[in-house]
């Protein structure tokens, strides 16, 4: 069980993490979601005692990280791909890690097998692809057979095959009863892997709820209607107390969207008035949009402005390696 309590990290004038408190539930995949620069990586590094919090604390099974005698047996973490010496083989990289925490050396071969790197175990890791580097990082995280796993943006820059592999790996780890805490800036990625969500923006907690609750609360449903007699239809909807607004997407020009309505009610209404309908389809807003809306609010709130920043929804699926920029890049030490 990871407990984050009033965690705060300040870099000069910038609050990267602002009084963040949440608990990571056990035995499920928890998505740690936020736009780039929201403070996800900083939070994860503070969980591992790599960065010193300005205030607040993180406890793992009730203990501070540096009180864990052999931490790799409690928590395994994948922070960044290929954080290994390029001249050292995958086997030797895992060997020193195992030795430092008194993990039996036989475990090295086991985890290499589990991530499919046994054939290249003796090869210099400098020649590894990003996907292989990521697998090695996961092997390192699994080494101590920990009950808690942290993954920081594990699918970044991976090809579709690699993404699928990581997804399945995370699910199977949770199925084994482990706690998986995985950060991402892509809602679409979390939608297919996470059971629980912790959403942050500008270092602040925006939401901490189950995936189902998030979907219920944030993906409002609406009915798209299209008619050759739009005025008559709008009139009919208005008398029934339903408000319709023109569809915003170009592909649906001329159609109307009725929020939180039952398609059957609209159909009956049209039939009663003899209005022809060319389309009547129930829709759900995408989770990506809900996430955008949620984090956009936090930005507005923080800056005190009234502009609603509208970001183009990111295409779901494999994400291009994001260019880290802005203030969020400060803590990401160049190497």
């Amino acid at each position, binding site marked *: 069980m990871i407990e984050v309590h009033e965690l705060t990290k300040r870099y000069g004038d910038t609050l990267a993490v602002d009084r963040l408190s949440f608990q990571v539930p056990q035995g499920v995949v928890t998505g740690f979601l936020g736009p780039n620069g929201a403070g996800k990586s900083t939070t994860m590094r503070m969980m*591992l005692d*790599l*960065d*010193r919090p300005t205030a607040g604390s993180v406890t793992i099974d009730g203990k501070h990280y540096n009180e864990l005698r052999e931490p790799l047996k409690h928590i395994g973490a994948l922070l960044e791909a290929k954080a*290994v010496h390029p001249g050292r083989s995958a086997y030797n990289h895992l060997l020193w890690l195992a*030795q430092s925490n008194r993990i039996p050396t036989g475990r090295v071969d086991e985890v290499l097998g589990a991530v499919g790197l046994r054939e290249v175990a003796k090869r210099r890791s400098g020649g590894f692809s990003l996907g292989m580097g990521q697998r090695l990082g996961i092997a390192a995280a699994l080494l101590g057979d920990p009950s808690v796993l942290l993954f920081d943006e594990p699918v970044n820059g991976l090809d579709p095959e690699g993404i699928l592999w990581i997804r399945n790996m995370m699910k199977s780890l949770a199925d084994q009863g482990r706690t998986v805490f995985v950060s991402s800036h892509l809602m679409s990625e979390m939608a297919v892997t996470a059971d629980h969500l912790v959403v942050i923006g500008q270092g602040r907690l925006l939401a901490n709820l189950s995936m189902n609750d998030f979907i219920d609360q944030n993906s409002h449903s609406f009915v798209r209607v299209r008619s050759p007699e739009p005025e008559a239809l709008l009139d009919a909807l208005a008398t029934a107390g339903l408000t319709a607004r023109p569809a915003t997407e170009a592909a649906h020009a001329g159609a109307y969207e009725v929020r939180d309505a039952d398609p059957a009610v609209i159909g009956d209404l049209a039939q009663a008035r003899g209005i022809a309908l060319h389309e009547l389809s129930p829709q759900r807003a995408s989770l990506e949009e809900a996430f955008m809306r949620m984090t956009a609010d936090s930005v507005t709130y923080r800056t005190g402005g009234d502009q609603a920043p509208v970001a183009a929804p990111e295409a779901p699926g494999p994400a291009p390696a994001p260019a880290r920029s802005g203030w969020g890049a400060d803590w990401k030490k160049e190497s």
Partner: protein
Amino acid sequence: MANTGAVLLSEWTKVRTVRSTVITLLITFVVTVGLGAGICAIQSAQWHTFSASTRATFDPTSTSFSGISLGQLSLIVFAVLVVGNEYSTGMIRATLAAVPRRRTLLLSKAAVVLGLVLPVALVTSFTSFFLGQALLGDHGTSIGAPHVLRAVLAMAVYMTLLALISLGVSFMLRKPVASLGLLMPFFFLISPILGAVPKVKTVAHYFPDNAGQEMVRVIAEKNPPFGPLEGFFVCLAWAAACLLGGYLLLRQRDA
């Protein structure tokens, strides 16, 4: 500390599984012994041109160690890379996640450097000495002569302390480029130059390389700033200060 042994073993594995360890230490040995031998051969050949006072203060033991002026650069690279490599690759985060206790980590790294460099340094200093004396011929000395064995051992101790100084600096500056950018010019250029400037000279005596030269002296110069034992303590103080500085920064800084 129950897990110090585990961390020591792990740090030893790290050092042993990269090529740079063997390469840098081998270069240290070859350059120190080779250059020392060359200088001894030249001195021996030039003996007839030396004045009586030069001959009187000629120290065959420290002359055979002349190669360290260049050989130490490779030793510095070795020690800097022991920690600098971790910072340049990002591996330091894996290390600190595995070993969150900074003191245990730093002391284990220092112990591994000490345990590896001392034997290499002993082999280097004894080889330099015997080869140098052989080339100096009649002008050489023997290991049984007064203070000579102490000087040969002091040479190995100096090399070990130099490696620990470099390790401490590397913990402080993190990036190998920064550490090497400071240490290389310091030991190769700045210290020898300042040592020649009249007023700064007094301060320069307390630089680790100059103190090291006092450690390995058998025949004292006129008005030496301090003796071999003091030289040892000066070097020891440098190593302790650099490692302490490294520890304080490691403890306080974000990784």
